């Protein structure tokens, strides 16, 4: 039976208890160190390989036309591959004993939200997850920032690929110009925060600095003939010079990563995500100071966060968002990665519909600010109805013979409130008892 601290840790920092799993031996921080065996779960096609595939698709459209069967078939193949990304992530969440690692991955993916709407963006998403985000969640934030901001997925999503310096060679020839979308969101969402020390003029200047950054046939490509000539002054410093180079962009992102406003913004987001909405200025200040002293190493944030008494407090002000909740339920029912990866197209579609009804179409947040954090955002009456309905169907299909009392012991140990024991034991059938357990606040909250 899990101990109380296992259960609190699994609730706040992981995806709940999986009864048939040997719990990870070591601290939360140990989960972040070294290789992750789950990385070998599925071979992931690289950004480069995917761009080559997309290039072939464009070639096919040129040769055969957009209405040809050959083109449609090829595009469909890429769309199917794109959809697999969500199930791959879910399989990792369910299977990984290093749950904190998966939770941090989800946190940083949300921080650097992309929300694909077209087939080519959708197809690229899996490479973004595995190359821009996952390798960087416990290193220097500057590396994560540079990787995310310069990845084709982000360049598509926030229109950077369409932004051209108005006085650049290309801008003059095509009469094209700036698009300030990426510049604004990097300052507002990814680094300084909306209350941070930047102005509209800084957004503009940064947008000029970013010109040239675009997508080539094999990856991010910096095209000097699209870059606005000359240096830009952002937040009081000058970047760039005579020859346009991507290094100037990286230099500014490095500086941004080390600004105190960025440190505070990131610390505050981590606290709100893992602990709760209450203002904790001291914890935020402590985390920010540790991060800056450690040259922007994300591990410094995590060390302070998990050592705070609030980290192991037995009150849970947050509610798991739907995708996270689904993973928690599937773990409680001992699902494994293989079952999820081999799910039929029909089951995959049904799960997507259920998640949408719960308010979270996976990997499709409404805007670049990602998913809401507030508990109230996830438990509106129709959303709660969708959670209860999905759990009912899942329990009926997969837990018809599970003893709900034993399951409650296995996932909640001694922490189950008396009224929950009463309700779970009082259900008319086993699967209804299991469903009641899994829709209880003890499982939904964290």
């Amino acid at each position: 039976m899990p101990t109380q601290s296992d259960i609190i840790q699994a609730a706040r920092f992981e995806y709940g208890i999986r009864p048939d799993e040997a719990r990870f031996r070591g601290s939360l921080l140990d989960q972040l160190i070294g290789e992750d065996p789950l990385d070998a779960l599925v071979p992931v096609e690289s950004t480069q390989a995917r761009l080559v595939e997309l290039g072939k698709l464009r070639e096919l459209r040129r040769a055969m036309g957009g209405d040809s069967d050959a083109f449609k078939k090829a595009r469909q193949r890429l769309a199917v591959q794109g959809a697999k990304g969500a199930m791959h992530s879910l399989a990792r969440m369910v299977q990984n004993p290093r749950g904190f690692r998966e939770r941090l991955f989800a946190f940083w993916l949300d921080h650097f939200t992309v929300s694909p709407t077209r087939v080519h963006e959708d197809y690229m998403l899996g490479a973004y997850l595995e190359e821009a985000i996952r390798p960087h969640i416990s290193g220097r934030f500057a590396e994560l920032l540079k990787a995310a901001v310069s990845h084709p997925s982000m360049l598509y999503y926030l229109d950077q690929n369409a932004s051209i310096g108005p006085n650049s060679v290309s801008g003059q020839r095509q009469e094209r110009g700036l698009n300030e979308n990426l510049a604004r969101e990097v300052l507002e969402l990814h680094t300084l925060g909306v209350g941070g020390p930047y102005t509209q003029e800084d957004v503009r200047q940064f947008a000029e600095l970013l010109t040239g950054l675009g997508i080539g046939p094999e990856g991010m490509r910096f095209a000097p003939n699209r870059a606005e000539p000359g240096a830009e002054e952002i937040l009081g410093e000058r970047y760039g010079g005579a020859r346009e180079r991507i290094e100037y962009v990286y230099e500014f992102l490095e500086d941004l990563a080390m600004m105190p406003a960025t440190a505070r913004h990131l610390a505050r987001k981590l606290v709100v995500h893992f602990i709760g909405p209450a203002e904790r200025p001291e914890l935020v200040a402590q985390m920010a100071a540790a991060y800056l002293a450690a040259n922007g190493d994300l591990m410094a944030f995590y060390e302070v966060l998990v050592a705070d008494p609030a980290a192991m407090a037995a009150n849970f002000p947050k509610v798991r968002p739907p995708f996270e909740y689904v993973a928690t339920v599937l773990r409680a029912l001992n699902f494994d990665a293989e079952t999820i990866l081999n799910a039929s197209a029909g089951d995959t579609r049904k799960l997507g519909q259920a998640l949408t009804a719960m308010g979270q179409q996976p990997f499709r947040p409404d805007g670049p600010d990602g998913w809401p954090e507030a508990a109230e955002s996830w438990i509106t009456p129709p959303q709660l109805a969708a959670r209860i309905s999905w759990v009912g169907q899942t329990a009926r299909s997969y837990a018809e013979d599970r003893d709900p009392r034993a399951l409650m012991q296995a996932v909640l140990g001694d922490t189950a409130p008396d009224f929950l024991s009463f309700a779970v034991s009082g259900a008319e059938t086993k699967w209804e008892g299991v469903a009641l357990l899994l829709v209880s606040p003890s499982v939904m909250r964290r």
Partner: protein
Amino acid sequence: MALSRRKFLIQSTLLGCSAAASPLLTPITLAAAPGDNRLVVIILRGAMDGLGVVRPYGDAAYARYRPTLAADSEMQDLDGFFALNSALKDLMPLWRAKELSFVQAVSTPYRDKRSHFDGQDLLETGSNDASGAPKSGQSGWLNRALGLLPDARQETAFSVGTARMLLLGGPQPYSSWSPGADLSMSPQTEALLARIYAEDPLFSSSAEMAMELSAKADSMGGGRAGNAKTLAAFAAARLNEDTRIASFSIGGWDTHNGQKRNLARALKQLSEAILALKSGLGANWQRTTVMAVTEFGRTARENGSGGTDHGTGGAMVMAGGALNGGHVFGQWPGLGELDLYQNRDLEPTDDLRRYLGWALRDLFGMEASALGATVFPGLDMGDNVGIIA
């Protein structure tokens, strides 16, 4: 009134919990609905380009600022100065019937950071804080307005769709449901569920409403959530019953890129929603006002990629039989470089909250002084804007 089966189960203390402490026991009265007027508030998320919707083609600068976007051979002339984006041409019969109006060059007090998220929060909380800094626990202005309706009860206001609407959030009860949502279980499970949620108000209040509304779901019309037309048809069905205020969102307005196509797509959703409300409401359309508002407008000049970036002054779209239709309200500031806000955005010449406030006053008899004090604290209501017929 007859007790519902579920309430009976709980009240019969089958579960042994204290009835007085149970948040599942909010009383529901059957008083008459507060008046016959109806208000629908649509939040257009992502910043609608007001200049691309209600086009100031009579201003010489317009075509100059928008070399590719200004051209629209099918745009519909409104008054010799403004023309309607052709993607809304299905609404022109409403314009001619004086059931469609616009407001140009308005905004909330939000300025300068041009963040969607703070801008939307401010639009929904009705706050007076130009910085838009979000404060936790803020209620929505429409929720506070419900507090001024003497006979308001849970069904009076309806949030339509799965997502939470901050606009309606707050202490006053309101309903929330989505087309396509469903919840069914055995009476025993229902009772046990109520017990599990009894000590967690967030869960118990939502579960109670889910059970209540799911039971009525058949009469509320089916269809899936997700497109604005379905949400509007659902809202209309509610408004034909006891609901008087309904709200939902339409997204897709953040047109940094390829605006021609993307704005047309979002406008189509809005147009279909308004027409679905009209057809669903039947005779009640004559007592209805629809107000579609957005967090801010977009840049006067098109950007380098056939789109527009975040701006300040924007437009409102209004429809309904109760409306003083056939007008483009608002004071036009002009598009000259010195007329623009920061030589970039349409200068807002009025606060859009005044339009919302006067609509509440004219439709529901709320006092202007109370509106300025509680619903939109700090707002000077000024003279009646005259949007209700």
